[in-house]
């Protein structure tokens, strides 16, 4: 069975198959014979020769989170021809920097704004964050309103560069 994962924008291919009680894994020219020590509760421990590796793996849809040796790696199942294209255009969306609630929208559509000017007040877990204009410009469209709960990365407003 072949798996293709993407990590830090690089694709990795790995072929995995059973070999009796063991597993045989091939990454490029490297082949590993792997014995399972434990696979329970999200914990996955295995031996490669004398070396023992304990990992924790959690799958969230197409994303695999792997914790190993004090570090965490996030791998997504790679799809050959799908690359997200960055949004391009004269105006760009300004996104929420955290999951939270919109306390107040400080500008209206059509307003001219200065770099650094606060546009939207967000609140989460009793902490207030202001979303400021990254550059001078003009508010093209408001995409949120006071009281609304927004996700991190959700567009709050469309801002055109002057």
């Amino acid at each position, binding site marked *: 069975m072949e798996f293709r994962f993407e990590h830090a924008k690089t694709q990795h291919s790995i072929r995995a198959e059973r070999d009796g009680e063991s597993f045989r894994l091939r990454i490029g020219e490297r082949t590993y014979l792997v014995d*399972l020590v434990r696979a329970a509760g999200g914990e996955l421990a295995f031996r490669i020769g004398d070396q023992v590796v304990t990992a924790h793996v959690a799958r969230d849809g197409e994303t695999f989170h792997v914790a190993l040796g004090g570090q965490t790696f996030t791998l997504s199942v790679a799809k050959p021809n799908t690359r997200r294209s960055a949004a391009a255009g004269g105006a760009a969306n300004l996104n929420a920097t955290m999951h939270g609630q919109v306390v107040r929208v400080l500008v209206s559509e059509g307003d001219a704004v200065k770099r650094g000017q606060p546009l939207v007040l967000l609140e989460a877990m009793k902490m207030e964050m202001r979303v400021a204009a990254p550059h001078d410009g003009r508010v093209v469209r408001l995409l949120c309103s006071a009281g609304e709960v927004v996700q991190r990365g959700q567009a709050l407003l469309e801002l055109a560069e002057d």
Partner: protein
Amino acid sequence: MFKRILIANRGEIAVRIIRACREMGIEAVVVYSEADADSLAVQLADRAVLIGTAPPNDSYLRAERIVEAARRTDCQAVHPAFGFLAENAAFAEMVREAGLTFIGPAPEAIRAMGLKTEALSRVRAAGVPTLPSYAGEGLIADFQQAADQLGYPLLVKAAAGGGGKGMRVVRAAADLAAALEASAREAGKAFADNRLFLERYIESARHIEIQVLADSHGNKVHLFERECSIQRRHQKIIEESPSPYLEARPELRAAMCEAALRAAQSVDYTNAGTVEFILDAHTGEFFFLEMNTRLQVEHPVTEAVTDVDLVQMQLRIAAGEPLPFRQSDLYQRGHAIECRIYAEDPAAGFLPSTGDLLCVQPPSAPHIRVDSGVRTGDTISIHYDPMIAKLIAHAGSRAEAIRRLDAALSAYTILGVTTNIAFLRDVLAQPEFVIGNTTTHLVEQVFAEWQPPFAPLPDSALIAAALSALLQSSAPAVGAAPAASDPFSPWAYPDNFRVGV
């Protein structure tokens, strides 16, 4: 001793209080919001009472519902822990008027210490040094004039505050008005009290606090200091006892402990409390900041070095027992360090990281204590503090405690949300931290541009992901293969596997 108490709180601190109750044979009742119906605190409690929806204003801040829950479940006392209603004198009064014991100081002491202006005048009268400050009411112009007299930089703080909420450093007169407005708004939300005050801001400061215990028979002791200088956005993240600064200065420690007892005395304090000082690392001067009239988040480091269980002492004091020791019986042995593990992104301004905890695997090792209120399958929501756990290491020396804490951090697995674990490990390894040069600005000075270390993907991680996918796709014992995208697949994280719920 009480037969049954109610815990007016949630998360790790509710769990910690339940554990103290277990050891003392006391039944523990918790209140909970709908969001916490499946929480560890509810699970471990003997009884649990639903008091509202997720927003604290509809549940954990609803004093009347909490008192009603305590009455209905025949509790004799209420433990407020910290946050929420812990320093709300009206709540303490309401508990008392309902014929129940409030596990904390008298409402009068809470009120006196809760209003910073009154607190400062009380402790000043008791001979405790305080920072030059101004506490006014309302008019911006008065604040501006006072600020000019105090000089910049200065701190705007909530009169009713704590925990950094409503707090701002102002370095120039031009920024004062905006800071006052924002702080007042935050303070109003967090404490239902938008009064503010100003105070001198020390650039090279250490935050050192003294734990005190006072019983209802007039006995008062201190349990030495905690140093809590490592903060981000005015929020403590690493705390320790003893303070590396005071270790070399026993007379200064004695003076601070003595001042703390005088501060407590000034409000006829009973139960556990903490007197916070700011210490100027250059001059060795210390100033009273505030007294927290409650248990502190960082109480475990004191427990580790003194062998005193502060929560159990709170219960004993509230039940009218005298302190079982005198000052001379107390000691401070070894070194303990706590760090707070948050669901947050230190590389993005420490923004909270909400989401599902796909895997939580705490470390297990000698002299490592984990205080946590969450487990695999729980959610970090926007409603509450995003702390996942407190991790405490105790050892014979500070160097050993750092090593022990670092090993435990590296073994703490949390998947599903971004955490500050890698950040904490970098702080523990930072040379100034290692030699004990800990000031409140260390994080902003040294770690402002912090990014998580980039590690290229090791083959073993790729093997783990592939094996996991392979096992999941061929799971024979389950009968049928679960859908590949099923986040509740029993293999991937069975701890999260809730059947039919």
